[in-house]
């Protein structure tokens, strides 16, 4: 059993009148118990087309599990973005430097899709914990 943690810090000195600064750490466990997730897939992909493609397909993953997925747009462009979706539903857009971290159900057809906004070599990195 592995022990993996994911920590988030959100901070701002001027978003609100009082400074915002909070941190939360999750230990990545399997569904409904205290046993750690013990497999990882880590990859970096460069895209040169604006076609929607599967970034992570459900094949090989346990459905309705407590999988976790991290995705980042490693670019620096404020205008270029990836549209991230699950099946046909758009979640959001990762602009240059943005990242996301989600629990992933991985049920039938729940592939994670990615669509670059431009065809000029955009790069994403991702990890799947399961």
């Amino acid at each position: 059993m592995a022990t993996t943690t994911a920590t988030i810090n959100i901070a701002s000195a001027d978003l609100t009148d009082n400074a915002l600064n909070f941190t939360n750490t999750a230990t990545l466990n399997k569904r409904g118990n205290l046993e750690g997730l013990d497999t990882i897939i880590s990859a970096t992909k460069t895209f040169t087309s604006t076609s929607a493609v599967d970034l992570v397909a459900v094949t090989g993953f346990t459905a309705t599990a407590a999988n976790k997925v991290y995705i980042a747009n490693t670019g620096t462009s404020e205008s270029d973005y990836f549209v991230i979706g699950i099946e046909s539903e758009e979640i959001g857009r990762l602009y240059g430097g943005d990242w996301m971290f989600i629990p992933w159900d991985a049920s039938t057809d729940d592939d994670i899709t990615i669509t670059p906004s431009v065809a000029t070599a955009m790069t994403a990195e991702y990890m799947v914990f399961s």
Partner: protein
Amino acid sequence: MATTTATITLSSADIQSDVLALTKQATLNKGGTTTGLEQTTGLNKVIYTATTNIVLLDSTVLGVGKAAKVYIANKSTDASEFVLITINAQIIGRLYAGDWMFIPWSQSDAAGNIELAPSVATALPVEYMMIHEGATQTSA
């Protein structure tokens, strides 16, 4: 203009033969710009006492196609308790006790609400926050 950052750190000494130690910081800007997001719901805490599927965040016209960011955390300490997160009826995943998620939310259309269904009706606490570009106000 506000400057807000979101930083993730992923760490493990034993999930693979090499130590995992990743840190990534994002500056939360409006879509397609270097101007910081300047509106927020603030950090909310709600204790759910029913398993009813509810709208956690309502997709609104002013938010469609923009660069809102959403943080949700299950603050339960019972490992078996989870909240099911969906967008427009599409299941994203289950946040078990102690889990959190952070996503860009482009509110793809008016039906693109973020919804939450607790697994138990026994006082399940959830924290959430949205940092955004704008939200349609409801007339009184």
